């Protein structure tokens, strides 16, 4: 049982840390992604109407 507990504790720590770190990264870079995506879509729309 001890080795299973150790195994799950390690994976739990990996899970929690990666969840928090990826959230922080996505908050910043995801916002930039959305802005550039909508900028491209707006350009496409202008081009299609033109």
């Amino acid at each position, binding site marked *: 049982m001890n080795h299973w*507990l150790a195994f799950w504790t390690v*994976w*739990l720590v990996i899970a*929690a840390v990666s969840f928090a770190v*990826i959230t922080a990264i996505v908050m910043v870079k995801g916002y930039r992604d*959305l802005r550039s995506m909508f900028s491209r879509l707006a350009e496409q729309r202008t081009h299609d109407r033109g």
Partner: protein
Amino acid sequence: MHFASIDWLIVVVYLIASVAVGLLGKKYIGSVSHYLVAGRELGTYAGIATLAATEIGTITFMYNAELGYRYGFAAFAAALISGLVMIVVGRTGLVIGRFRALRLMTVPEYFERKYSRGLRLLAGILVAVGGILNMGVFLKIEGEFLTIVSGIDSHYLVAVMTAILLLELVYTVVGGMMAVVITDFIQYVLLSVATILVSIYAVFHAGWDDIVAKVSSTMGSAGFDPIENPKFGVTFLVWQVLLWFAIHTCWQTTAMRVFSTRTPEISKRVMTWTGFIYLGRGMLPMLWGAAALTLFGLGAVDNGVPLPVVNGQTLAPIDAMPAMLASILGPGVKGIVVAGMLAATMSVNSSYLLGWSAVISQDVILPIREQMGKPALSSRSQILVNRLANLFVGLFLMFWGLYYTPPGAVYLYLNITGTIYLAGTFICVIGGLYWKRANTSGGYLAMLMGAAGAIIPFFFLHWSENVTGFCAFGLAALGLVLGSLMGKRAPTSLAAARP
């Protein structure tokens, strides 16, 4: 009532902001590809946010917490498998790379490219029916979460469910995937903050050593060892591996994110990173469930675990986690967490509404029209059909959610209803992409035998979920191989991708 004024303020502000921002997506809708797959312009990080938000809902937290409550640390195996399989799919590009390169909008669309329109129609029907039945339990369970944590009287459950659904429908029907991507980003941030906060509070209040001791005293080594646990075992683990490969490649809502990325390489990166999020998506709420067992597991023993008793009232295991949150979170924090859970709910439901309505419109209605010789619909008309299908799915959910309660653990019920079409779909997709001999006869047999392999053993023979799931995949594979070998040889090249 457990909610303070600050909590209500946080929740109301979030709801208004979410819907308002979502409606901004409408102005970017030009063609049906904008409506369904965001014009295929999604970048890596926005892709991670929308994929994670789509597949993390209050239902996710509820059923994973229930698993943690009932099975302790042994349940972590399911979360570990879900995350590692997603990372493998992302790193290798298994199925998703080819799917994205084909510029699909739905999974059944692939069936017409490789097999036949008839098989696309069958797949579309099975995907839509299975997906909607699967989603049918979400609203009720999410409504239960909200009423328990906020303290709203349970008699208002229907009103709460209706309000949630209407808000989701507003921006999903109007803005499609454009609205969903924007709102998913906000919702992902909020639900992640809520997840981290709850994890800290749960471990702080229950105590790590006490959680371990409670699981140990309640379940013995079976609370840690998934092979020894009588509910899991080797068959469960094998089934979970197959199922998660099927989900991460062929589940329509996940696949729509893959279809929405700018390039196949981005879809692989999105899948890999989100795989790490999946570890926490499962393990963290399972930990909350184990914490709830530690704090409230004092009642009569039911299926090997003591039922939760909160304020003198005995609850079902699935309700232990929200009851714990109502008890341990203070004002302000409770509002943030509930707003985060609402965010999780709305992100899942909006994406699922869009996913299943896309299948109904693109893979059932449009192919039937073509078969009847009717002219092709304009982009504008296709968007209208999608919107109407969205509304239809929303209405069905309201009624199904009110009348049906799944037996046993919700996680296993969802897995089985998903397996009904996932077994056949996954086998057909793998065979279609990687085996030249796969043909339409094999495809039909795979879909029908996969569905029968899930329905008959579980609903009529009352076999366990593990064995049923295993059978469904096995029978689907057998069907594809036998049907393909006995049927006509398939053409050697796949139809060209549509522009």
